[in-house]
């Protein structure tokens, strides 16, 4: 019981005095987590109807998912788009972050704000806007169109992550490298890049997730053969509640968790 008498903060208030806070926080954390992971046990339910707790366990919804050509195609599409988005947004965002951070030009600030706009503008507007414009250009229901759209969402995210990483990094190292004869490009690749690599990896993974999880733009501009997983899930949710969604959700939670833990791992390695 010694723990409860120990001081918990600078004011020397004890853990015991704060028990109520710990309980409240615990409840809130449970409320945050449960709806996220509850899909997991649900997905193993045998029932046609959404029920929890499941009365019978089975893998039928996973079978439904993996057997369905439509689901598999949309999953592949989402993966494809996700990877492509990651491959495009990460370098673009990193370059932008670097350029704007290092530059002393007056325009740098304005450009930074400009590049953040996708995060400020309500996504619904980006969705319908691109729907219209892509419609005119024939880019709707194409992989390319989706990658473009998702990249616009992911790039600001990458930029913010890399900018934060650059702030904790001593730019003088690059200057030293350049004074020793390296070009700016070489200095970046040989000196700076290796030191911010974990942040770049984190940004890459999060770009992937941003694209993979993205719903509303995909609802509008993906369709037919190139429908994304999320679009198909949304249609399924609206029209009829297909328990296959529970299985798919579980897989998505699994992917998110894995990538998230990977980024945490990177965070930890970053300071070593």
């Amino acid at each position: 019981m010694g723990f409860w008498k120990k001081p918990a903060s600078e004011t020397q208030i004890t853990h015991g005095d704060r028990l109520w806070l710990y309980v409240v926080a615990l409840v809130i954390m449970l409320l945050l987590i449960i709806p996220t992971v509850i899909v997991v046990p649900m997905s193993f339910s045998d029932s046609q109807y959404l029920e929890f707790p499941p009365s019978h366990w089975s893998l039928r919804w996973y079978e439904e998912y993996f057997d369905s050509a439509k689901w598999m195609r949309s999953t592949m599409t989402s993966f494809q788009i996700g990877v492509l988005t990651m491959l495009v947004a990460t370098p673009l965002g990193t370059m932008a972050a670097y350029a704007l951070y290092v530059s002393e030009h007056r325009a740098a600030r304005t450009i930074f704000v400009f590049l953040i706009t996708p995060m400020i503008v309500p996504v619904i507007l980006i969705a319908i806007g691109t729907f219209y414009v892509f419609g005119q250009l024939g880019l709707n229901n194409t992989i390319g169109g989706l990658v473009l759209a998702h990249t616009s969402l992911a790039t600001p995210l990458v930029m913010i992550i890399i900018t934060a990483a650059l702030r904790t990094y001593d730019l003088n190292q690059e200057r030293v490298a350049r004074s020793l004869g390296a070009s700016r490009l070489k200095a970046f690749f040989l000196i700076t890049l290796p030191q911010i690599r974990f942040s770049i990896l984190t940004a890459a993974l999060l770009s992937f997730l941003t694209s993979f999880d993205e719903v509303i733009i995909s609802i509008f501009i993906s369709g037919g053969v190139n429908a994304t997983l999320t679009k198909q899930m949304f249609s399924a949710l609206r029209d009829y509640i297909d328990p296959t969604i529970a299985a798919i959700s579980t897989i998505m939670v699994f992917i998110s968790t894995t990538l998230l833990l990977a980024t945490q791992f990177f965070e930890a390695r970053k300071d070593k």
Partner: protein
Amino acid sequence: MIDSSKALPIVIRGLTKKYGSLYALDSVDLDVSSGEFLTLLGPSGSGKTTLLMAIAGFNRPDSGSIRFGDTEMILAPPHRREVGMVFQNYALFPHMTVAENIAFPLKLRRIGSKESRQRVDEALSTVQLSDLGGRRIDQLSGGQMQRVALARAFVFRPRILLMDEPLSALDKKLREQMQIELKQLHRKLGVTTVYVTHDQREALTMSDRIAVINHGRFEQIETPQAIYNAPANPFVADFIGESAMLPIKRNSSGDLFYRDLLIASGYSELSGKEWLLVIRPERLFAVQDSTPASDQTIIFTGVITEFVYQGETAFALVSISDQHNLSIRFGTDSSGSQNLMRTGDTLRLGLKRSETIIIPKPST
């Protein structure tokens, strides 16, 4: 402003604080008299801040007692200790003005707004910041922030004042000026003050007494003069002031020798054969080649290995044996006699026997 009879003495007995297996404080005892200015002096990690925090109530010692006057305070929470405290980074509240910061402790004590305003003005004028009451904290310079922190710490008339390296963030000139002002303030307030610093010069300047602390234990607690002239052990000798330390041995007749040079006699009652001679550089003086050693003076002969002219002083490093060097500082005078000294020259250094400091060599 404060009647010095309203200052409290601090009595600490057997105070211990462990972090894991590390003793931050190892059963320390300390007496601070009413109204005294005592400095806790030591290197980083010595435990000085831990001790100050214990007095303020910000950590809970594992055992021991802390009394303010007759009252045991060891279990008292920090907000009930009635001590004024100045933090290293001032800890001024950024969302309040200068006046609001200073009034904060008064408001907590339910002091009415009229009297509160009066006391805040008084405090501001004591620290010479009379017109800055309305300023925001981010508009203040380092020195000004320091004074506001001070004003806030004494405005509620505490009987004990604690300061945790309050001048370390200031530049040299300002720091030296503030040292004098703090001393004057202390004299005016008459409050018992415990001051933490790692800067020995600061400690020597400001303190009534210095408590030298290392590895959670006190090495010596005495007046600045006593500590400077009679350090109790090599750590204190080394930490305070510059010094050279030469190993000396005692022979059976009670004479102390450095190699074959007689340092002192009449030490037959001393136990132990190995001792250290502590030499403060300013006690050495250059000696003419012709002057012999005498009863009052020891003469070291050596070769100059470094000679540096530093403006108002010149500094020479003299090798007196293959293992030991002595450093000596000269005031430079216009005759330029130092100009004749060069590396490689032989130099004879004199030391008055009355100014030798002899301390036991610690067993390793």
